[in-house]
């Protein structure tokens, strides 16, 4: 199979393709480093409060873990979806390296489908949580009767003041929505980036000689996936 006629454009500040590629790769790794600290700060705050307000955190994760399809929690479904999408991402990089453009396009679409599926499940979760009344807005936070009863029971078991526990419970939800929300934002950006990749792939821009963009955006997706691997046990499996 002959190589695609397109040559790789080298930006004027770079000496050659190799240098451009090296710079782009290092650039994405450095950027992901900043993202680690970004999410790390949030996770640090969450973990500190988990230790301080364990009862409330436990109550929170009972709800997050309880939204289930076919007996499996939505968080676990999301984890499965994202892990599979990372597989399709890795395969799409491989497809580019082997010059298999049609396979690449299919894999890109598959990744986007999984990404959108993730977002869909998230949306369903958020809707469910809205109905449970746990969105931590000032006037929006009114947990329904079942949740409130659970809270009271937990308060009595530990001797805690129910009003205090309610406040801590609300804090859990603040962290939950903040962390999953920022993560979801990154997913939406990821789907957008993959749309860009798809458009260019359909124009045949990615060849074994010029597939840096696929690799770099793939790295971003892997990172967002990795963040979820941390968020899932932290938010859903508090025991």
């Amino acid at each position, binding site marked *: 199979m002959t190589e695609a006629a397109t040559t790789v454009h080298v930006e004027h500040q770079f000496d050659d393709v190799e240098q451009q590629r090296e710079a782009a790769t290092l650039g994405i790794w450095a950027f992901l480093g900043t993202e680690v600290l970004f999410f790390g700060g949030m996770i640090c705050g969450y973990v500190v409060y988990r230790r301080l307000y364990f009862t409330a955190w436990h109550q929170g994760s009972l709800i997050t873990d309880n939204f289930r399809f076919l007996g499996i929690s939505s968080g676990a479904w999301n984890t499965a979806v994202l892990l599979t999408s990372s597989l399709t991402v890795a395969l799409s990089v491989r497809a580019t390296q082997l010059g298999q453009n049609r396979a690449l396009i299919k894999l890109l679409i598959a990744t986007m489908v999984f990404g959108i599926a993730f977002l869909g499940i998230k949306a369903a979760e958020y809707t469910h949580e809205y109905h449970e009344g746990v969105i931590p807005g000032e006037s929006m936070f009114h947990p329904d009767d079942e949740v409130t009863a659970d809270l009271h029971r937990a308060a009595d078991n530990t001797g805690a*003041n129910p009003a205090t526990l309610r406040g801590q419970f609300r804090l859990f939800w603040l962290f939950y929505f903040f962390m999953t929300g920022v993560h979801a934002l990154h997913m939406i950006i990821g789907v957008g980036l993959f749309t860009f990749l798809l458009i260019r792939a359909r124009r045949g821009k990615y060849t074994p000689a010029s597939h840096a963009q696929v690799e770099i955006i793939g790295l971003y997706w892997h990172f967002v996936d990795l963040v979820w691997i941390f968020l899932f046990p932290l938010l859903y499996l508090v025991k």
Partner: protein
Amino acid sequence: MDTSFRLFPKEASQLAARVDHLVLFLLGVSAFFAILIFATILFFVVYYRRRNPGERPPQIAGNTLLEIVWTVIPTGLTMVMFVWGAKVFVAAQTPPADAMEIFVIGKQWMWEIQHPEGRREIDTLHVPVGRAVKLTMTSLDVIHDFSIPDFRVKQDVRPGSYSTEWFVPTQVGQYRLFCDQYCGAKHAEMIGTVIVCDPAQYAAWLAGAPSDVPPRVAGEKLFLQYGCATCHGQYAPTLAGLYGRSVDVLDEHGNHRQVIADEAYLRESILYPEAKMVVGYPNRMPSFKSSLSEEQLMQLIEYIKTLSAAADLGSYHGANLGPATQPSEAQPRIENPPFSDFRTNR
């Protein structure tokens, strides 16, 4: 108050001289190195000034021995500073057991001070000379700081928890008190005076306002009103002899710990009983967070402190020593104390 120009603050506490000596040490070391470096630079700049435009000096890449010497020596000196400073600090943060205790509440923008004998004051603090004083402090709103420069002490005063500060005033006189953590509009006016008197004057001042009720008396009233004696001494750990002892507790995660029953522990147990539960007792105490103000908490704590046996400070096991905390007969027991329905059978 002496407002004349001063080069250095007065030394008016047991700590001040120690801090000043430490400062002099650092000043000496710093001055030595600063003068050494500046003199060297000045000398080099003059002696090696460019004398003709084309001159090219010898190139010297470095000297490993020199690098080692001027790494090791500063490291050694700074470690001396660290150890000395740590010693002074630990002493400053460790009040003696027999310190006289005074409560402080900071709020925007004033200091309310409560002496255990009953006398209260605003923005002034009367203390006797020569006795250790321990301040237990909290804030009602934002973070403040109780700073007495002439004593060389300060500590942040936080909402939601207690902090402590202690000193022994060594000189009779009046000294500045400043709030030293920015707390809003009138932060610069949250200042006051510490009045150190000799013991006789202090006693006279304490007795000066007979209408003030000592906090422990108010505390005893609260103890009855909220029905603490209903449980404590029978179903719940007795409070007699509790204050100051070490207690075996389980925390929220079920981890076993030993803590000292100080003011902070008492405050936390009243507001968040689930945080530390005495080993061997069920988790039944309700929280009084929504019912008690900071001032009432201080009063209750003062009362509980009076229940301490003077003697040994061994480990406390919350043993049911019988009704050790019965109120005096003059006060009627309140039937059906509030929150009693919190403990309905489940």
